[in-house]
């Protein structure tokens, strides 16, 4: 069986970002069940990856005059996240963080437009305790990656970046503002078809007064920060009537209550949304696409099974992911390579499999933008267009050109890594390169094209000179091939 078809490799591509040589060695000694448990129970693994930034033996980062500042400089925050995707010992945590970033898509551009670049970065990326202020939105996702969706939803609703992003800060009793109230139903929970325009009006009123405030003298100060602030005088205390149940007894009306207690409106409303069966269905279908397949619709058995787990665990995500990874559909041969890799996944996997000695992950930032995925800056609140939506001529050129940059940078490492016994025969050389990477199987014709390339320019002897020329180009051809774009 080709390396890429092995269940462990499949698992590491889906529940992580692929595997380095060392990770492949570590996991290949485990049963699949033990590997799933290790990935899911990630809190048992050390979270020391940030301390490795800047060390030898790890992919590099590039600073722009001054210290590496992932809490206050968004470019550094992007580098830090990519570094974690490549090197974290908790790959599933990073993977779910990316999932929530897509689900609650919030763009740094608007947040920084309001608070400036320092506060914008803090609101998106601040590591708890690194500077004063609440943790950034991505850290919120990271810390609650497999927790209860209800709790995450409530935290997101009071997250300063979200309050800027969907204009909650201007939502007041006198003039309700519908942006968050609409999107929380359309995109974050149960989706179109489950609510009316009247529900949008009522939802806007629920969140009147959910605001933020600056603590500190001015937003240029890295020690200043924005924090959530509930303003009772801006809250509409009257009753809100919905077309769907808010309470366990079927009640559809959030009662009038004193403005001082008005935050309870939002908690009641978000709790109802989180526990709504259609929210459960929508979430598990998204997770199906994320973990299992973009090429087959989620079967009804799968959906109802996963929904039962979700509702039965009071909206906790960990058992849902556990259910998915252990379900028969996950290992079904039709699920192998049935996902288009997201650009960030493509980059992390390419770096893991190509090597990184002497490469700065900063070299991936502009290519990622050209591939269509700038981390912390999704195009809109609906997130990125997934699946085939990632693929266009421009995006394929960007993927191929990143592969070229990486392979050229790793030229000598790639050449030296070819085992002695696989050098003199062109077929063995290609075999070794394909084993190093893990693309979907090639047709005979595609493999023949690779062999034809190796034979171009003169007879193949496997000399160091030839390896230095051909190994990086073969790596680029593999990384840029259609087969490699699937995980």
């Amino acid at each position, binding site marked *: 069986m080709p390396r890429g078809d092995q269940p462990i490799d499949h698992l590491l591509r889906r529940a992580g970002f692929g595997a380095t040589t060392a990770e492949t060695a570590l996991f290949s000694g485990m049963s699949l069940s033990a590997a799933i448990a290790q990935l899911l129970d990630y809190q048992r693994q050390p979270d020391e990856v940030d301390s490795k930034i800047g060390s030898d033996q790890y992919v590099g980062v590039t600073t722009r005059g001054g210290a590496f500042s992932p809490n206050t400089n968004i470019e550094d925050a992007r580098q830090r996240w990519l570094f974690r995707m490549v090197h974290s010992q908790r790959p599933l945590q990073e993977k779910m963080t990316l999932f929530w970033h897509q689900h609650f898509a919030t763009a740094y551009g608007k947040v920084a437009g309001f608070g400036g670049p320092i506060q914008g970065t803090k609101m998106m990326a601040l590591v708890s305790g690194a500077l004063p202020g609440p943790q950034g939105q991505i850290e919120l996702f990271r810390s609650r990656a497999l927790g209860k969706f209800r709790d995450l939803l409530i935290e997101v609703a009071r997250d300063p970046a979200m309050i800027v992003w*969907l*204009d909650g800060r*201007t*939502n*007041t009793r006198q*003039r*309700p*503002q*519908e*942006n968050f109230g*609409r999107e929380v139903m359309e995109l974050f929970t149960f989706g*179109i078809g489950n609510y009316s*325009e009247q529900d*949008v009006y009522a939802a806007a009123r629920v969140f009147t007064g959910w605001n933020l405030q600056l603590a500190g003298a001015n937003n240029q100060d890295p020690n200043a920060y924005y924090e959530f602030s509930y303003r009772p005088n801006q809250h509409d205390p009257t009753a809100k009537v919905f077309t769907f149940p808010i309470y366990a007894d079927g009640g559809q009306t959030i009662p009038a209550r004193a403005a001082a207690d008005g935050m309870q409106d939002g908690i009641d409303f978000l709790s109802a949304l989180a526990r709504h069966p259609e929210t459960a269905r929508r979430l598990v*279908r*998204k997770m*199906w*696409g994320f973990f299992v397949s*973009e*090429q087959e619709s*989620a079967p009804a058995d799968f959906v109802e099974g996963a929904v039962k787990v979700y509702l039965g665990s009071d909206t906790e995500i960990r058992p849902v992911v556990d259910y998915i990874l252990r379900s028969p559909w996950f290992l079904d041969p039709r699920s192998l390579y049935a996902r288009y890799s997201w650009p960030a996944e493509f980059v992390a996997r390419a770096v893991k499999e190509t090597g990184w000695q002497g490469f700065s992950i900063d070299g991936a930032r502009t290519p990622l933008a*050209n591939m*269509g995925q700038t981390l912390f800056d999704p195009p*809109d609140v609906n997130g990125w*267009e*997934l*699946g*085939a*939506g990632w*693929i*266009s*001529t*421009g995006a*394929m*050129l960007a993927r*191929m*050109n990143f592969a*070229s*940059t990486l392979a050229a940078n790793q030229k000598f490492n790639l050449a030296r890594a070819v085992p002695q016994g696989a050098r003199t025969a062109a077929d063995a050389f290609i075999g070794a390169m394909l084993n190093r990477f893990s693309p979907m199987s*090639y*047709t*005979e*014709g*595609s493999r*023949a*094209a*690779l062999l*034809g*390339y190796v034979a*171009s*320019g003169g007879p193949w002897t496997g000399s160091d000179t030839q390896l230095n*020329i051909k190994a990086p*180009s073969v*790596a*680029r*051809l593999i990384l*840029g091939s*259609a*087969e490699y774009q*699937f995980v």
Partner: protein
Amino acid sequence: MAGITRRRFIRDGAAAVAITYAAPAFLSDIARAQGAVARNLVVLYLSGGNDALNTVVPYTDGFYYSRRPNIAVPAGLVLQIGSDAAGRPLGLHPRLTGLRDIFNEGRLAIIQRTGYENSSRSHFQGIDIWGTGDPRSTSGTGWLGRYLDTLGSSDPLVAWNSTRETPRALVSRTVGVPAIPDARTYSFSSPNTGAEALAERDAATRMASASDSSAPHLAFVSSTTLGAFSTLDRVGAVAGYVPSIGYPNSGLGLALKTVAGAIAKGVGTRVFWVSTGGFDTHANEGAAGVGAYATLMGTVNDSVLAFYSDLKNQGLLGSTMLLEFSEFGRRISENGSQGTDHGAAAVMMALGGGVRGGLYGTAPSLDPDPANPTLENAGADVRHETDFRSVYAKVLDSWLGVDSVSVLGGNFKNGPGIV
């Protein structure tokens, strides 16, 4: 909208494209007819839901001012463009001086109150409906994609998308539309140089040609790669275009300059797609004709004016039409954030050498009386008067020269006579 549905129709589109691309004809060198100047269409999408009432201002309607106390454009500042068929005086936003000049040249058509029944207030459903040209469907091919299908072209550069994602409108059964966000970076690189790099590019082409064409997704990616290789050199030529006039240094300015380059160099493109964002103005639109919304209008005005003038200078205006739209208009009353929330009917515009300029359709009365027939949603939103598909039909029938009934799947031939 539900993600799964979105994926599914992309998948279906992808499968269909891949099958066509796997045909040997695609792999042969593509003959390009470049001689005669064919008509082309440039679609400009204002992303986020443009506030039509501040673009084309009903400046004598008292309700416009009472319902927008902070963000209304003062009557004294609007650029007057006369009255519509109902005798209602209208004015353009003060930053639209270039569009006003084109209007005065008789080459700008403004179509008020365009939309459809039960207008979606969702960005994502809205743009998909404008894309498919079918309010009942947000999936499948787009109206421009189906037009491309009628051309029977094997050249992917028959269409040119200047954004990163393929919009629903350009999803086609037979054409995998190239995405060219920046012609300058649309290039191929190799770890090696010279003959070695050429051999590698040749191998990449062979690998893509030989990949498993029975697996639709794989074939879609391979065909996209082949599409990139077959368009590289021509796009590279466009990247070197020197316009006859300066363009603003904005994303839209760059995109329209590139489109003008592709038209001037005759690369054979029939449909261009450009977009500019920021129109989801829930907050701080700005007062008295200055502020965030004025900036948006400035971006559109300055870029479109440069494009129009550039083509005009080169005698290329007669073969070009630019068609502007947005996924919805906005609520009539401003919200508490000096912005506006999602609404219904919008404004479309068309300009070019073949356009019959003027004001089409009638302005709404903004009287919040729930019985007001020009509004909907209990007087909150503008109700459509002109079905957007009838504008598409006019463009298809009278500009692009194809039968709109087959492209749109219905008869919408009663549209405004903009061309």
